[in-house]
């Protein structure tokens, strides 16, 4: 089991960890630890394709403008699930993705990268488009930009990936006791804080071997 998943390697998308493996996910500014209960692929296919023009209730995306970021319903999952996906535009638009609607992905301090039709030329497996969705109400939002001086009729975006069903791991702290044999509440709280902070030694002791995933960059 790898300590750092090879999710961004320039190769085909595959499972980040196997069923019954442990993953540690950075989400909402803390690390959470899960066991993978189930995993299945989302093959590249028409149900995983969205025309953002139609999604926005529009008939075109105007020249040199964008369609504002919006929820993509086909990617919505339920609590206790995670999706690891990659994507590409099928039409000549540039895609901008957001965690929910407020936080950009693929960002620097002053800029935000986009995925366009040429991305797959230099990155044929679209590894640089990898993103995650954790549970319900943490949906990805998608914005598309038309760089052309003419309006476009469609802005289709194709997704593929894997869906995981996760069980949250509750660390066994029964061995953390005072010299008198009573539960050491202060030490237990400190361990829980260390687990949320992603302290590697604490995670190794109380969670075990794990794969670290950057699900959300907040």
């Amino acid at each position, binding site marked *: 089991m790898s300590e750092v998943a090879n999710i961004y390697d320039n190769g085909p998308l595959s499972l980040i960890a196997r069923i019954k493996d442990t993953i540690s996910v950075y989400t909402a500014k803390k690390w959470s630890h899960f066991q993978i209960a189930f995993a299945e692929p989302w093959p590249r296919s*028409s149900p995983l*394709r969205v*025309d953002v*023009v*139609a999604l926005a209730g529009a*008939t*075109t995306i105007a020249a040199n403008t964008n369609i504002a970021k919006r929820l993509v319903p086909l990617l919505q999952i339920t609590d206790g699930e995670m999706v690891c996906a990659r994507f590409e535009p*099928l*039409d000549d638009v540039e895609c901008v993705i957001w965690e929910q609607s407020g936080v950009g992905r693929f960002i620097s301090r002053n800029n935000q990268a986009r995925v366009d*039709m040429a991305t*797959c*030329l230099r990155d044929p497996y679209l590894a640089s488009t990898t993103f995650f969705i954790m549970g319900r109400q943490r949906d990805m939002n998608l914005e598309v930009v038309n760089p052309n001086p003419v309006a476009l*009729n*469609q802005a*289709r975006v194709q997704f593929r990936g894997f869906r995981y069903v996760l069980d949250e791991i509750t660390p066994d702290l029964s061995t953390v006791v005072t010299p008198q044999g009573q539960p050491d509440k202060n030490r237990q709280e400190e361990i829980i804080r260390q687990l949320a902070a992603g302290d590697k030694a604490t995670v190794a002791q109380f969670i075990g071997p794990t794969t670290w995933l950057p699900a959300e960059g907040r």
Partner: protein
Amino acid sequence: MSYLITQGRYVGMIAKSNNRSGAAGVAIGPGIVTTTAVAATDIVHQIPVGRSFYVLKLMWYQNTGVNMTLVIGTLSNAGVPAMVQMFPTLLALPGIPGGLNENDLVGVEFMLNSQAAGAGWTGDLYVESYAAGVIAAGVQISAELAEKA
């Protein structure tokens, strides 16, 4: 069009010859469409839902005894649909087969334009033939396509 379009950018394409697949597609004998004298009714290919396509090859033949022209395009969303020409008009000489392949054709992407009448079109591939500027029947045409999905 440039081979870069079909061999580089659009991997995983499906080539079809005169396939009228799609939600409302009506199957006719695959291979050849013979144009009729009715305006804008000769469909060659219907887009499957969510896809678009390029024309990779066109072949035509007519032996009506007169020079004819071919208009290749798609159909408007108007109440009475009209031809929306996508390629320059082609000349079909009597008794002489004609054809254009991927290298000769420009890379027009046929796709749905859902705008209302006057601006939008179906994106399906249509052909119309003319003799002396009047719609006339009798040109056989077949097409090879690459669908993008």
